[in-house]
């Protein structure tokens, strides 16, 4: 028995050590190349970091807990608008607005989460979608507070500007920090008791409740954590864009991109959404440059192929393949088909 635990501890140590080393190296590279990249590239990579953070956040409620939030962008928008409003109306600094936006989004998640998380499957997905669309309309209809359909601008010059505009370099590091933060949170959740509870809820909610997991509380906390992360990313986005409109901040396409990255990369893992974000953003940028008019068309095709061929996502597919020594794609298709 003692040799078994010794072997296990060594394996655990390897599990934590190797990815951490990779992570540190990756961050070092990212920091080093920063000064050599032109503005356009910096912005493109910032967007990748942004989506890394967003997909990690979605993974917590959608991947681990299995509640596919199709309205996740609502937290992006709420966080973003919170920052815009407090910076404009009450001259908050960005650094104060950032965490508060996260908290604001998390509070909102708790309020809507309690009723919505009682719904299952499709119902939860579309209820959250309806919530996101509805909040966009609410924002449009409160022009005195939010500028309504005409948009709102964060002050970056003059006496209202409390924080200096970060510029391409600054935002590069801001989003990098948010991405690192989100990966750390994702890893912590994945490894600890809470994460196992979420997985149990996902894989069999009745059994989870029967072994003592407070499923209501766990789901709401997971939702709030993912909202917190998403809200902060929204705040960063708003500061970067300066002028924002409801259609963009609550755009369902942002949610869909998040979900695609997680699903294609491998939901329920930490590495999966990371790879998914990197991969999909590169593909999307490439398509946008070289096939501008057909870009959505091809992206749609990629989604379809990915979902049919590797529905469990790349990382899960590889892990299972390594375990069962079976990499057959045909078997993969057979698994879910009628």
């Amino acid at each position, binding site marked *: 028995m003692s040799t078994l635990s010794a072997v296990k501890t060594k394996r655990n140590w390897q599990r934590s050590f190797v990815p951490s080393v990779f992570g540190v190296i990756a961050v070092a590279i990212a920091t080093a190349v920063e000064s050599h990249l032109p503005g356009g590239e910096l912005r493109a990579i910032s967007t990748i970091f942004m989506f890394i953070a967003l997909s990690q956040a979605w993974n917590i409620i959608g991947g681990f807990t299995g509640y596919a939030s199709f309205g996740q962008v609502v937290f992006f928008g709420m966080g973003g608008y919170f920052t815009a409003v407090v910076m404009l109306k009450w001259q908050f600094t960005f650094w104060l607005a950032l965490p508060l936006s996260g908290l604001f989004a998390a509070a909102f998640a708790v309020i809507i989460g309690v009723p919505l998380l009682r719904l299952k499957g499709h119902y939860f997905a579309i209820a959250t979608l309806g919530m996101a669309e509805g909040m966009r309309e609410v924002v449009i209809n409160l022009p005195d507070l939010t500028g309504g359909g005409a948009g709102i601008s964060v002050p970056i010059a003059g006496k209202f500007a409390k924080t200096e505009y970060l510029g391409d370099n600054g935002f590069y590091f801001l989003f990098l920090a948010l991405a690192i933060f989100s990966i750390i949170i994702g890893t912590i959740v994945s490894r600890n008791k809470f994460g*196992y509870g979420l997985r149990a809820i996902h894989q069999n909610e009745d059994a989870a409740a029967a*072994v003592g997991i407070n499923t209501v509380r766990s789901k709401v906390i997971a939702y709030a954590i993912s909202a917190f992360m998403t809200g902060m990313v929204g705040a960063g986005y708003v500061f970067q864009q300066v002028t924002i409109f409801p259609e963009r901040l609550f755009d369902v396409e942002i949610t869909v991109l998040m979900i695609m990255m997680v699903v294609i990369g491998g939901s329920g893992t930490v590495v999966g959404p990371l790879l998914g974000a990197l991969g999909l953003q590169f593909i999307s940028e490439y398509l946008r440059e070289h096939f501008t008019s057909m870009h959505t068309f091809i992206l749609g095709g990629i989604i379809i192929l990915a979902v049919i061929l590797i529905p469990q996502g790349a990382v899960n597919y590889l892990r299972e393949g390594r375990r069962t020594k079976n990499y057959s794609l045909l078997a993969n298709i057979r698994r879910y088909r009628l």
Partner: protein
Amino acid sequence: MSNAPILETRGLGRRFGALDAVSDVSFSVPAGQILGVIGPNGAGKSTFINLVTGHIKPTSGKVLIDGKDMTGASPWTVARAGVARTFQIVKPFSGMTVRENIAVGVLYKAQGSNRMSAALNEADQILHEVGLAGFGDRMPSELSTADVRRLEFAKALASRPRLLLLDEVMAGLRPTEIEPSLELIRKLKASGTTVIVVEHVMKAIVAVSDRVLVLAQGKVLMEGAPREVLANPKVIEVYLGHRYAKRQKGNE
């Protein structure tokens, strides 16, 4: 240790629309006893378990665990009070290994630790007790029917419960597979666990129960010592039908 029975129900009932799945069920189980619950299909046995464990809320009556009112409590509250159960249609955590399946229960029991490694070790021990040693790294989908039922049993043992409700754990098992389960139940009783066994397999009920409760059409038909209950003509009638009972009577 209080003198209250570990489980007591008073007038427990659950109505679904016009159907009284369970009605006016009152009984109590003293700590350390093995209670067998039998009844024909549709008698409300599974509903009864769900009412006790909080998976379904009763529409009437009370559930008291250790003298405390737990009527309508949520399943996790009941679990934390030291109650565990198995499901008739097994509910494993499909994406986790067998060991992890049990470890989750260890993590989340009342005063459970937060450390995964300790939970995994405890899980290994439980695997040993139910006869699944060596299966720890398998996935539930890879297990045979008998083994997956053992896993279900093991998951219920994870929290070292004081009251264990077994919902037809013997169903579909061969005789050689039933005996180890009976042994396990006897060992549990010896260590002070109260066990409620809902079963169809009469041999098992007779072999292991201290008392037997008979449910029919949602109500308590009778309660008593195993041999007595099983020989009772009303019980036979409820299982085998009115005509059979008449024929038996005619043969006497």
